[in-house]
């Protein structure tokens, strides 16, 4: 037998708490937000996704430098967003959001939210977190909060970089479009923030879907892909006008309502309906996710 040099008695670990927990253990101090932030920040996909958010406006900016393209203004009233993309920093930012909102941001949010639990399950580290024990509801809540924060960060990085680059290149100009009177930069910035806020709310549906799938499968790719796939399915169904009023119940139906925030005066009716739809769906999906995750057998 070796001398007891490596293992020493620990008087503090005698379990004096009423819950029987080890000394220093408090359920609501487990997996602090900061710890989860660092866990995710150290991951390559987080760094890449956030990096791309910075890179994309730069790529678009460089693309615009390649002279004049053909005018294909077949996009209706909001085609002006494309026409005026280079008329100022605010317009450039709106253009960047316009081209990213329907797919790129959906993928990014699905990545942050769908990957968060499923990847831990696939690495096998999920069971050790649960054995700490991090209470399941807390684990999911922390992971969800952090994933949402990273999603918001991605959105802000995209808009912030676009605004910075666009302003440096095209100047601090009023927001222009054909759907509204010219908006002074200050007012335009407020509108831009409102647009960002609404986009964030709409993307909650993706976040909800991704989290629900994330706790239902061990394959991170399945959760991310599944959320994006269902989002696309909903978008396709929304294109079918034969569905009539049913389309209003699709989670993607109001996803472009933020364009109304650019018109003068501001159009908020669809934004309000869209927010109701998004919050309802997100709550439903998250509710199901919590229900499932707090009851399921973790066998991975």
């Amino acid at each position, binding site marked *: 037998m070796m001398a007891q040099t490596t293992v020493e008695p620990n008087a503090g*670990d005698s379990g004096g708490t009423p819950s029987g927990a080890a*000394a220093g253990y408090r359920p609501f101090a487990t997996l602090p937000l900061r710890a989860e932030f660092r866990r995710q920040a150290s991951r390559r996909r987080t760094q890449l996704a956030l990096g791309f958010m910075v890179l994309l406006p730069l790529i678009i900016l460089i693309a615009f430098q390649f002279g004049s393209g053909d005018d294909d203004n077949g996009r209706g009233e909001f085609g002006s967003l494309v026409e005026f993309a280079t008329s100022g920093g605010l317009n450039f930012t709106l253009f960047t959001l316009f081209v990213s909102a329907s797919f790129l941001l959906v993928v990014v949010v699905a990545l942050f939210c769908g990957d968060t639990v499923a990847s831990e399950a696939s690495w096998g580290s999920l069971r*050790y977190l649960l*054995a700490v*024990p991090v209470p399941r509801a807390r684990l999911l809540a922390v992971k969800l909060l952090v994933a949402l924060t990273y999603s918001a960060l991605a959105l802000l990085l995209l808009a912030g970089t676009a605004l910075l680059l666009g302003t440096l290149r095209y100047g601090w100009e009023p927001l222009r479009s054909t*759907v509204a009177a010219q908006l002074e930069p200050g007012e335009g910035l407020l509108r831009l923030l409102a647009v960002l806020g609404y986009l964030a709310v709409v993307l909650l549906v993706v976040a909800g879907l991704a989290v629900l799938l994330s706790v239902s499968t061990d394959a991170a790719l399945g959760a991310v892909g599944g959320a994006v796939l269902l989002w696309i399915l909903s978008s396709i169904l929304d294109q079918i006008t034969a569905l009539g009023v049913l389309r209003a119940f699709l989670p993607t139906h109001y996803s472009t309502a933020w364009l*109304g925030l650019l018109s003068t005066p501001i159009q908020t009716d669809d934004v309000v309906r869209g927010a109701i739809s998004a919050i309802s769906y997100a709550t439903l999906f998250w509710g199901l996710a919590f229900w499932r995750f707090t009851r399921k057998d973790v066998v991975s």
Partner: protein
Amino acid sequence: MRSPSPAAWIRRALPTRRRALAAAAAVVVVVLLAAGVAGTLRPAEPDLRTEAALITVRSGPTGDEPVELDTTLYLPPAAAADAPVPAVLLGHGFGGTKESVRADAEEFADRGYAVLTWTARGFGRSGGQIHLDHPDYEVRDAQRLLDWLAARPEVVTDATGDPRVGVVGGSYGGALALLLAAQDQRVDAIVPMITWNDLARSFLPEQSGEGPEQGVFKKGWAGLFFGSGGNPGPAPLGGSGPAGGLAPGGGSVPGGSLPENAATTAGAVDPSCGRFAPDVCAAYLRIATTGRADPDAVALLRRSSPAGKLDRVEAPTLLVQGAADTLFPLTEADANAREIAATGTPVQVAWFTGGHDGGDGPKTDRDRVRHLTARWLDHYVKGEGPAPADDFTFSRIAGFDALNRGLVASGFRATGYPGVGGTGRQPVSVSGPAQAIANPPAGNPAAISSVPFAGELSSLLDGVAGDIPGQHARFESAPLPAAVDVVGAPTVSIRAASPTGTAVLFVKLYDVAGDGAATLPNGLVAPIRLEGLPAAVEDAEPVTVTLPAIVRRIEAGHRLRVVVATSDQAYATPVEPAVYSVALASGAVTLPTVASEPIPTDAVVWRWVLAGLIATIVVGLVVVVAVLRRRHQRRESRVHPEYAGVPLAVRELRKEYADGFVAVSNVDFEVHPGQVVGLLGPNGAGKTTTLRVLMGLTQPTAGEVYVFGHRLVPGAPVLSRIGALVEGPGFLPHLSGQDNLTAYWRATGRPWADAHFDEALEIAGLGTSVHRKVRTYSHGMRQRLAIAQAMLGLPQLLVLDEPTDGLDPPQIAEMRRVLRRYATDGRAVLVSSHLLAEVEQTCTHAVVVTKGQIVASGPVEEIVGESPSVLLEVTDPVAAREVLDRLAGVSVLPDGDGQLVVDTNGTARSEVVAELVRAGIGVDRVVPRRRLEDAFLALVGENSRGSGDR
């Protein structure tokens, strides 16, 4: 269980995938279900009866000229002779037929009205000629239709021959409704839409106060009007009435759907007049040729106008007029409203954003007009519902609808109809020098303000509406300090001079945005014809021009621009070239405003719904969290007194998976302080499942687990006193070994000092590799790191699943020592293994599990201690068997291959060997058997050996 058989893997993997699929399917189902609920709320197709008939009526000045009218009667399902319903007479727009208003008719019928539609004389299959709503022809036709309705048993009558009826129509049908109500008191209510008051003024407007004789001929619209009546063509004029719903008009009728038209019913057609009555045709030709109206032509047009006849209207009237209408502008409805109201008949006015140019307008507008119409008829014809309030409602384009890519209009209401003059007036200064402008010869090139009947496309003209340089004068205001909501007709006073003494001018009011983009609201212009002008502008008398009535918000920072132009595409202008001088008389444009309030829409409701939803979620969340916290605290603080000092007590544990597989059927054991307990069993025995329950990863089907007396459930705080390695290591592959341990400990939220990192790292023994990424580790290195992680914080119970998996022999030996040493100071260790030797060498106690059940348990010495059986290898097994059988108490257990397993049953081994040697049998080996091995083999059975050993 590190690498279970493929079957087990599939069994475990399948349900997860199935569940993931099920979750995805559930999501789709929820969406479709929500959609389905909405679907059932949609109204079913109305079960209407329709009767098409050619009715011959007698009309004309003497009332005896027969003419065939093509009619359709729509009857609601409930209509019957014993349950008669009120009726609606529904007229169509110019150039249309009864089919143009089919959708509206169906909707009225759906609301419980018998609806009679007909094709006016001169159109479609009806006979006769177009007399432009002549009191003796079209209006008398309609009177005969009232007679016909009164004779129908399904229609309610007020008296014999007097049906209960409302008359609705747009444009041509709207004027007919007014004229019919003026001529026939049997009409109970009317809803004329986008129609005229004075047809002469409509086609020959003059906005400085002169009559139609001085008017400027609206040649664009007139030509279209005449053309569509002359050639029984496809496009119904005025067919684009408000609302695809209740309001008449409807879509255009495809030419092909009118197989039998004028040519067959009216016989030979004068090619210059088409189906127009000769007098109407002649008047048009005269006006169109000269651009001026003679008194006869004016009289003819006045004959077809409600103006001057409306004092006889007793039917309550709802006037619907469009703001985007260069044919019959808002001022026409204004004139109608004033005339009718003068006699005390109830009148209400509704403006919407469509019209002959703007079509049906945005959906919000269509819905509003539909609602107003239904409410009007329900009260005054059907006798249901309260008297409509809101004498005046109007709407303004509020922006673009992002979803439907259309316009959005917001509605406003006011008590008391203010007229086009508004309730308030706001002067805005405009300035500019006197300017000389040229009248182009033959009116070419001409400014473009509107394109007649371009429908909603005309709104796109806002951007291109152009004035020709040199042909217009501009007067601009400073940027407005605050937004102004213009509702009504602005006025401006100008002075003009002309070398010829006369001038035709077009006065327009532009809204100029900050970036210079000028918008002419709805393409509306005010034509004026001035006569007796001096040659110098200084000598000219001021002329007050009433600009077209508009509903528009002029935003703060925008400018007003008054433009006086000499030409306009839509009007006939003097042929001779001339140069006029134009100046402002007073330096201000007077903008009318109306005190009004927004009509509440469901948008307000939705806002409350949103607020309620968020509040509900927040409250719900707080309640759920509070309830769960309380429940947990109560459960966690309960201690089972019997097991208070026992690190682990498993009681009658059973785990059945969802697919019916019973992994653990009954497991019952305890781990006491100081013990190293080995959980021994082949793969699939239920060891890992037991450990999963121990870690709170899996819910047991039955039975309990106690850790120091605390019931163990998933997430129980007492789990913090357990360190575990279950089912192999689980690390973040992109972090180094050390970072993984740090990240893990950070996740526990416990103090750093309690972690004992150095001890753990020493146990891991990874050296400098601890700084490499885990991704690069070998299996054994990960295993050692996982054991180190399990020991972080020196938990009182250490649970290790196959700890020596992947370790090399020296490391295994070291690990045994570590574990033995660990189980001191009140700590305990539970090790699971399928290797007998490992348990034997490492553990103080053992629990043997197979097929989900415990088959043996106790101190290892007791189990491993020498057994009464012995294994013999002999030269002649057959003879040996005979010898042994003879020995009392000794029995040979069934075994083979030249080996004998003998239960000595108390007889000394030396005695047995001596007996065999005596019998001349050579004994090669004598191996004492041990109990654990016996138990293991006997209980575990042969069949599991293959999968258990590796």
